[in-house]
């Protein structure tokens, strides 16, 4: 199934880094996020769009994960030539990831 069936996301920027918060709709699905949505899989999902590392943090109290995608905005801020220079749509892109229930 797609990640969008059990989670919602919000993304934003810090310089050339994108952050994506991934939040389980139901607390019981949080372990599925922890197991399925790894830093490696997120990095692979975005391919050449993310030039640097992907780091994952866990927030079990919110049933959420936080990902930092480094070197993902073509320089970031005012330097970026991208239409989504602030990474606003990265969270939506992640919702298409295929995961095991």
């Amino acid at each position, binding site marked *: 199934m797609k990640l969008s069936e059990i989670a919602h*996301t919000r993304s934003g920027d810090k310089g050339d880094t994108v952050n994506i918060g991934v939040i389980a709709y139901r607390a019981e699905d949080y372990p599925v996020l922890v197991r399925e949505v790894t830093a490696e899989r997120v990095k692979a999902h975005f391919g050449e769009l993310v030039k640097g590392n992907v780091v994952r943090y866990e927030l079990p*109290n919110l049933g959420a994960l936080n990902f930092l995608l480094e070197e993902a905005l073509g*320089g970031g801020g*005012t330097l970026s030539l991208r239409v989504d220079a602030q990474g606003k749509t990265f969270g939506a892109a992640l919702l298409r990831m295929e995961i095991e229930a």
Partner: protein
Amino acid sequence: MIRIANGQGFWGDWLEAPVRLVEQGPIDYLALDYLAEVTMSIVQKQKLADPALGYARDFPPLIGRIAKQIRERGIKVVANAGGVNPVACAKEVRRLAPDLKVAVVLGDDLYDRVGDLLERGHAMKNMDTGEPLASIRERILSANAYIGAFPVAEALATGADVVIAGRCTDTALALAPMIHAFGWREDQHDLLAAGTIAGHIIECGAQCTGGNCQVDWPSIPDMANIGYPIVEAEPDGTFVVTKHAGTGGRVHSDVVKEQLLYELGDPKSYITPDCVADFTSIRLEDVGPDRVRVSGIRGGGRPPMLKVSISYAWGYKAIGTLVYSWPQALEKARAADAIVRERLRALGLRFDEIYTEYFGVNACHGPAAVTVADPAEVQVRIGVRGADRKAVDRFTRELVPLVLNGPPTGTGFGDGRPPVREVVAYWPALLDRSEITTHVEVVE
């Protein structure tokens, strides 16, 4: 309990939001966040052109508009609208609202001190790249230390109706009223962390009341009249996030979670000048319609260094677009891109980067985008960035000719060649906090 509202998430946010917050229900404090990372460079340029400018120019007219109501009801306004010229901002506010008492927080502006700080061994290395600040010394446009909530609370203690800061943190705008009203001290880390997280939740305005929210977004009521956020803060550090009754939007724990994660780094270590907040300690509870209670927040002591926000002249960029229609819209757009690149090469022009994306295909999501077979139309968007203004300017002449001398169905060139824009880049650094001394002035 005190009610702290946020009516502006950035300079350019909805002009009606702060007025409606004042008019549509009870609030005690109105926080307004005007400064983004590059805003300081914009206001610095304005100040260089006119010494009476250099602040968020939307702010004084807003205060003029709400002056009578905030004075009658005792509402205090807290804003980082001062930019690089808080005193000039305060004078303009006083001109438009002569009955209000206005205080400013000074001491964040380091523009005239950079040379001295460098000479005394403060390298202010770029936090992302590690480069020393001396490498861009001549190109610096602005330099400001992020100051925290205590100087802003000190300004509230003067009894001012309006407090204007320069580069204080966004979260300080909400924390400062709590420090002022509840008498919180610098060693009460959990309380300061709670106020900081309250500030983080409301600092982006309607992003915690249903704006930019993925959770069943079509069902979010009356977005046209969306209510901006209000924190009902208690002296024990717990608070409720809500909005005025009868306004549009939605406050729910799912919505608040999205905003908690917005622009977050390490959740255990959210560093501000006032404390280090731990986002893994937050407890959320839906306690009524459009009411989310927040509790359990823990924090640590303030850091020895302050973050410094420096902006500098980097170079130039331009971004141009053309539209190609079905059939083979994407193939035509790709051919156009190849032609532009070959012509730029033939001209011997060099750029730091040439970047192309295809609107309607993959501009937002890149390799993660949904595949669309033979779309109805595609916009090719080509951007270049470089230090040489002439090269960037020459690039802007290379798109429109393709309408006649490139692939068929090229259109969407109505605005002619794109403008060349100056690129002002951002340089984050750290500085010993002992170098920063703030003070408060009441502007008569």
